[in-house]
């Protein structure tokens, strides 16, 4: 058992699950989505990204790429939220943008988890 594999696996799954937790609910109603969950999703995604850094294998490179995609989408989601709240005011369009960005991040996270699982299954030990 490789401890760094445990840690990175842990954060990859955690990133996906918190992301899903935030995404789940009516995409037009902001009250159905917790800001704390978005915060947690961002932090766990960033940590998951850090643990994918410096991996020279091909699958490591793809994992890093998916993770970066998720980071970008989640951070944009939070930025849109801040923009909506302080600059233009919250309306349905902003809310849908926040949720759909996190949905995009979730797909990237799903790809990430699939790759991670595939790599784990492929290895013989």
């Amino acid at each position, binding site marked *: 058992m490789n401890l760094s594999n445990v840690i990175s696996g842990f954060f990859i799954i955690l990133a996906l699950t918190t992301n899903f937790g935030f995404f789940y609910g009516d995409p037009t109603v902001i009250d159905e989505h917790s*800001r*704390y969950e*978005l*915060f947690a999703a961002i*932090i766990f995604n*960033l*940590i998951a990204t*850090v*643990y994918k*850094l*410096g*991996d*020279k294998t091909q699958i490591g*490179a793809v994992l890093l790429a998916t993770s970066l995609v998720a980071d970008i989408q989640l951070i944009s989601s*939070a930025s849109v939220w*801040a923009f909506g*709240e*302080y600059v233009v005011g919250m309306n349905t369009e902003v809310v849908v943008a926040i949720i759909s960005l996190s949905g995009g991040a979730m797909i990237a996270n799903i790809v990430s988890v699939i790759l991670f699982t595939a790599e784990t299954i492929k290895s013989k030990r």
Partner: protein
Amino acid sequence: MDNTALFLIIRRLRVPMFVLITTFGISILGMVLIPGVDEQGRPYHLTFFDAFYFVTYTASTIGFGETPYSFTYPQRLWVSFSIYLSVIGWFYAIGAIVALMQDKVLASQIDLSKFKGKIHGIREPFIIFVGYNLLAKSIIRKLSDEGIQSVVIENDAMRIDEMVLANYTLEIPALHGDINDPDVLRMAGVNKPLCQAVVSLSSDDAMNLHTAMAAKLLNPHVKVIVEATYEEYAENLNTIGIEIVENPFKIVAKRLYMGLRAPSLLMLEQWIYGEPLQLHPRDMIPTEGKYIVCGYGRMGKALRIALKRAGIEYVFIETNPKKVRQMRKDDVHIMVGEGQDKKLLLDAGVKEASCIIAGMNDDFINLSIVMAAKKLNPNIFTVARQNNIHDDSVFKAADIDRVTIVKNLLINQTYIAIARPLSERFLQLIKNKGAEWGDGLIITLKQIIGDNPDKLETVVDEEHAYALCRHLEKGETAELEILLRSRKDHRYCNRAVALYLRRGDEDFLLPDPGMPLQIGDQLLFAGDRESFEDIAYSMENLYELQYVLEGKSCATSVSCRLHTGR
């Protein structure tokens, strides 16, 4: 993906970045969760953006006051906690980065990638030196002054530092690595078509053999120049097809034989190595009488063959009884004992001997042998082997007739092999020519050119002989002799002699001046500066070539152009 250094940095940054993200996350979350009070005394919660903004400037110690309203005490408690938390996080991260910069593994990886970049950037032919010792140093210096690029592989980091300080004309890339790792040679560019030769002049024969094999396996076309002082190693090297195996002791012996029986060849050889075309008093070794040689090691063995071949009477003195027994099998001219022992010297016949050779591998024993012999017989010709280049002044002060510095011979030989391939081949060809042939050549050279002829190596190709190539491509002929004609007056010959012509695999020693030239011919001339200038002009310039061919100078350049078809 080959940039190991970058990956190493990124991988090492994982934990510091994890710490930073976590401390920020905890601080922000706390700021959001703890309720505050606004101006009207109503409770409120910081939004995530407020908290992120606050933590960002607090953690980076900019300090900005409390925002958007003054904090309550629970908030201040949390802020105090998060300041310490985030400052510790930053300190750890910065400390980790500084430690990374000092990391030896990383430094060596960065050096390696720099070295690879330099090798990749080389656009000229280059030579790889394995080991940066005194020999390599002198040869690299000579090559660098000629504009020939070298690359160094060295096991000892101190020597690489020394090399960086040596300040050569060209920048010499150096790789810190062990030759036992085949990747090291590959990284130094042995596979590249521009790699001309691999040189290993270590005093350790096994290492030389190793280098030679590795280089030959990685690139069969590369020239390998190694030193081999033991016969077994030399044979091994020859069987695996290494062209140039240099045995310094054989060179010494060959020169001794030449000095005894064919001084003119010795003169030619020294001239090729860059000395004037004359014999020094130190080369006038006695050709008659008895020789006493101290030391029957690798050098002694080589000297015995030379003395025997020259038909000189000799006796050896050796301290190691094992070596004595080895020699006694087929020869009896050996005595056991210390060379500086007066009684032993007298027994060996120092009084009537004509020459003593101190050939031990210890400089101070050699000096004392020579001193002792001189005391007993002031007229004796003394030859001493100098092992360490640093002992120069001591040997000069000792007033020895001839000092043999084995390392210098190797430097000359290797330099010629790398930078003057035609001269090297010329030396090989004249090796067995005999004294009369040499005498004849030297008289010719002295008559035509004078006491101090120069050497010129040139090739009939596009780069060196544009005009001549055009002329030959048209199907016309040009004899070698036209290159020797004077540009002032074509009826006269310049003071130059063609020593050697190489055409493909054919050698023409002292080629006939009437010989027609072909494209691709390589030529070695002896002559003076003026004649070399004329040779270069006649080969490169259409008008000059026209003149030396036909003896007519073109009055108008237009007609000349028409004539030469340009």
